[in-house]
């Protein structure tokens, strides 16, 4: 297998967009191509992330149109869909296609326009990522699944719900503080613990500010061999390890609050990279809900099981802390256009490693990790990225 590197990244500002799915994707790709100093005709394949185009715009089969918008003809284009982990999975397979020798330069990314659906219908479409036959008819929602996780977490580790809620609120405050420094974030405003407590209850015990928003946006990355990357760009970012795990229906998952899919994915990514959690300098992980950040920080091995919430209280996940988590604001504040999220996480880590993250730069970041979860804990994809110079 050949070594693989990222040479260009782009993303739209996340938030509310009037632009179409493909217009947003085009904007993100233009930035990525400019960044990589590569022309569209050099792209050999497109790995296109989109979850809900059929509901958002009545657009299926979006990948060939995405290529055509860029003036790309003849090349293979494929749509990926793994719920919220979509773009990370697309990037993993794009990397594997380059590693295998199948392609030399490829484009991966995603686009999503969830706000147009409105909350009740968006909630319905997101719930389609759970088991439609054996879970869906109960009216389960995504906040609901993570709320059930919060209850389990509290019980499993003997952390009173009141204490857990305080620590979850601290995550919302931290990620909004980070998002306020990120010009591309959906929310650029700081919030207080009281703002969290005063927000509406969405699914007990999760309140509105425990939840990431519905967001529009697109993101893209250009991937090539490390050998080629070193000739094209002064700061190539190596895809040092990737891992992906699946866990089926929520009902099949007996280890909760531990997520088997994440543990499998992370183990594989660390193994490939020859690194351990201690080697990671910065991490963008899946904080679709505040409890999700705690569970991910443990599953990736940064903290012992049951200790992730305490670490937040101690500031260990702040920029400048032991392991800065979601310096971009995370899904919580940067926003969560589901099919584009993973590539936006990669965008952030690449900027961090190149020391181009501006006001949310983590000093001395040389190795970064991306973690994205899809469905009700049914798919997790991890990427480990490191400086290639």
């Amino acid at each position, binding site marked *: 297998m050949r070594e693989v590197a990222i040479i260009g990244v782009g993303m739209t500002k996340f938030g509310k967009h009037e632009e179409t799915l493909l217009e947003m994707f085009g904007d993100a790709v233009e930035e990525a191509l400019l960044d990589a100093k590569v022309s569209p005709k050099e792209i050999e394949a497109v790995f296109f992330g989109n979850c809900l185009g059929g509901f958002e715009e009545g657009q299926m089969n979006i990948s060939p149109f995405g290529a055509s918008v860029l003036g790309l003809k003849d090349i293979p284009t494929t749509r990926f869909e793994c719920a919220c982990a979509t773009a990370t999975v697309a990037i993993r397979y794009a990397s594997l296609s380059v590693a295998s020798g199948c392609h030399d330069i490829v484009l991966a990314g995603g686009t999503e326009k969830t706000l147009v659906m409105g*909350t*009740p*219908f968006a*909630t*319905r479409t997101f*719930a*389609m990522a759970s*088991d*439609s*036959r*054996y*879970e*869906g*008819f*109960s*009216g*389960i*929602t995504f*906040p*609901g699944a993570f*709320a*059930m*996780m919060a*209850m*389990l977490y*509290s*019980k499993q580790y003997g952390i009173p*719900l009141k204490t857990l809620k305080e620590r979850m609120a601290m995550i919302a405050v931290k990620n909004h503080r980070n998002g306020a420094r990120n010009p591309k974030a959906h929310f650029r405003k700081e919030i207080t613990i009281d703002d969290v407590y005063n927000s*509406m*209850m*969405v*699914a*007990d015990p*999760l309140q509105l500010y425990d939840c990431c928003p519905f967001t529009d946006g697109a993101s893209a990355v250009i991937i090539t061999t490390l050998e080629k990357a070193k000739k094209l760009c002064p700061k190539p970012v190596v895809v040092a390890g990737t891992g992906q795990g699946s866990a*089926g*229906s*929520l*009902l*099949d998952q*007996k280890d*909760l609050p531990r997520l088997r899919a994440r543990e499998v994915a992370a183990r594989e990514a660390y193994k490939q990279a020859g690194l351990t959690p201690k080697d990671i300098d910065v991490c963008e992980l899946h904080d679709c809900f505040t409890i999700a950040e705690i569970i991910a920080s443990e599953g990736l091995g940064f903290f012992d099981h049951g200790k992730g919430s305490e670490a937040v209280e101690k500031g260990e996940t702040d920029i400048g802390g032991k392991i800065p988590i979601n310096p971009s604001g995370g899904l919580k504040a940067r926003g969560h256009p589901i099919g584009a999220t993973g590539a936006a996480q990669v965008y952030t880590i690449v900027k961090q490693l190149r020391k181009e993250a501006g006001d949310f730069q983590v000093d001395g970041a040389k190795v970064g990790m991306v973690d994205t979860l899809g469905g009700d804990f049914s798919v997790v994809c991890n990427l480990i990225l490191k400086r290639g110079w």
Partner: protein
Amino acid sequence: MKLRFIDYCKHIKEGKLVGLKCEDCGHYIFPPKSYCPNCGEDRLNKAELSKSGKIKTFTVVRVAPEGFTPPYIVAIVELPEGPQVMGNLDYDPDKADFSLLGKQVDIGWKSVGGDRYSAGEGVALSFSLVI
């Protein structure tokens, strides 16, 4: 797969909660699968599961998908045979608190009309506390 969704629905309406059992390792399986997740064998046969269990976790859904009217309680119940099932707890959402975890429930069912994306109607399990 030896247990189809349509048959699962039919059985529950007849008062039976049916899953699968692996003839090789004895593992009970729900939701249904083609192969045993425990041992990988395919000799799975229909097996009746207990219509009672313990609440593993729950939430009160207050922002619902289109087609559902909040608030309502969604819970995961663990059956004595091992599998977990999801359904709605018949209980006042505003009185639902952490003390519900571990409580024993009986399992019934209700029809859910579904929408244009649900491939017709389905059933949701309903849970009632054993007093």
